[in-house]
């Protein structure tokens, strides 16, 4: 029983992380109908931005929530900026190009970031700064609740709540939803479609930044290829939920996190990564549009 609760907490934390990254895939897909393969590398850059910020401010010498917040801020800023640049210089020039060209460009940007990362940051893994202590906050019924478990789940929830507010209760968010179904009509109503797309990239990238710090706190080893596997899993989460669907990405992420944790706990850690692909294959066979996937929306 204690085990189960502990695994649930871990699974939720992992799921929150997958969800944060999956949201970036799903939002960009929503407005551009493209898979931004570079998203997982934006996430990686976020982890390094936090890493260097920690070294710069010597944060490890003053662990605590404030340092944690500074890490978050650094990663969010780094990711948002990178997302903005990628959209501006890689994708925007191809706005009217065939889908295949855009896909290849996305893969190219991803490789560029991965290998530039190896050159700039070095290929060997680095240890993510430890700013939150790992000692249990309190114990209850034999389960120890750690501060970082709360922070991971809490920050994940807050980030998603903020996103929800932005998308469903602000003018920019409304424009984003409008652009996702019909950019042409949005533009004749006065929406600057390019700006809305930038907004989407910045938002999605910022969430990946949040995710990267949460991962760094939970699994403190970072390296330039760290985005590949987690990016793939987050992508599966987005597909599972229904790509393009915001709530779907959250749901997909949580399902992925929980099932991975449970499989590792009760079957074998050998299957850690197999879960994701098992789910992907299953969803593609049974329900290709995803759990909450919308049907093809009509266009002008």
């Amino acid at each position: 029983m204690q085990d189960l609760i502990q695994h649930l907490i871990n699974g939720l934390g992992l799921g929150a992380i997958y969800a944060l990254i999956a949201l970036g895939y799903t939002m960009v897909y929503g407005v551009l109908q493209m898979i931004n393969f570079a998203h997982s590398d934006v996430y990686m850059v976020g982890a390094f931005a936090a890493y260097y910020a920690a070294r710069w401010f010597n944060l490890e010498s003053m662990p605590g929530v404030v340092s944690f917040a500074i890490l978050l801020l650094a990663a969010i800023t780094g990711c948002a900026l990178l997302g903005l640049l990628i959209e501006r210089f890689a994708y925007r020039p191809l706005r009217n190009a065939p889908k295949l060209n855009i896909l290849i460009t996305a893969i190219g940007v991803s490789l560029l970031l991965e290998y530039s990362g190896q050159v700039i940051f070095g290929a060997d893994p680095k240890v993510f700064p430890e700013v939150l202590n790992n000692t249990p906050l309190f114990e209850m019924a034999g389960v120890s609740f750690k501060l970082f478990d709360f922070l991971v789940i809490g920050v994940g929830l807050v980030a998603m709540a903020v996103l929800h507010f932005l998308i469903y209760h602000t003018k920019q968010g409304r424009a984003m939803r409008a652009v996702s179904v019909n950019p042409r009509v949005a533009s004749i109503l006065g929406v600057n479609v390019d700006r809305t797309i930038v907004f989407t990239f910045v938002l999605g990238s910022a969430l990946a930044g949040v995710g990267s710090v949460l991962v760094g706190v939970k699994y403190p080893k970072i390296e330039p290829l760290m985005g590949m596997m987690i990016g793939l899993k987050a992508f599966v989460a987005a597909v599972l939920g229904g790509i393009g669907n915001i709530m779907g990405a959250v749901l997909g992420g949580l399902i992925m996190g929980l099932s991975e944790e449970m499989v590792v706990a009760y079957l074998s850690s050998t299957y850690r990564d197999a879960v994701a692909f098992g789910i992907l294959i299953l969803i593609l066979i049974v329900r290709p549009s995803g759990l909450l996937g919308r049907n093809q929306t009509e266009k002008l």
Partner: protein
Amino acid sequence: MNIDLPKTPTSQQHEVLRVENLKVDYGPIHAIKGISFSVHRGEVVSLIGSNGAGKTSTLRALSGVLPCQGSVVLNGKDITKLPSHKRVALGLAHSPEGRGVFPNLTVHENLLMGAFSINDRALIAKNLEKGFSRFPRLRERRNQLAGTLSGGEQQMVAIARALMISPELLLLDEPSLGLAPLIVSQIFEVIQELNALGTTILLVEQNARLALKKSHRAYVLETGQVKLSGFSKDLLDNDEVQKAYLGG
């Protein structure tokens, strides 16, 4: 159907829209081959023509979602090269062919999208209220997703949305498309009423008889060119128009 001929407006001098030698190409296809026309303040001008004549392409060029050649002048300002989202701020509103409501947004949110270029909250609230009192049906359904509305209700959303900026010029693309006769006459009553209140309208219709009855002047488009133009009541009696577009 009971039809009143609209009165010819008094201030025919001011040109709200002046289009010169407009050309639109889709790759190798020349959809619009150099047309010129104008709309004066207070007028309802209709563009009629059969399928593929280029009516929709013309409106799209006017609102800037299609690249074009020639010149488009709105209230004396050349907007030919202006991106579409900036034209709205100059008072150009467009209710597109097929309505183009956002199915994933509520009726209320759809109307707010129409006011995207306005930052004055009080003005938005006022125009929203006007829209709801013009189309009470929409008020009842304000929190419903627009995708769940009937075709006629969606057309109301499209028009109400375009009216959110109190436009200088309202472009209406086939407001009667796919609607039952009763709804069509309701929609056209609203159009007349809007015009009586001073809205200048450029109306695109396949239903030539209806368009000619409800407009002051008209241009007949045929394969991307202006074939005929004149006062609508004269065109109604014109032999060529009768044969080609009025079925007799």
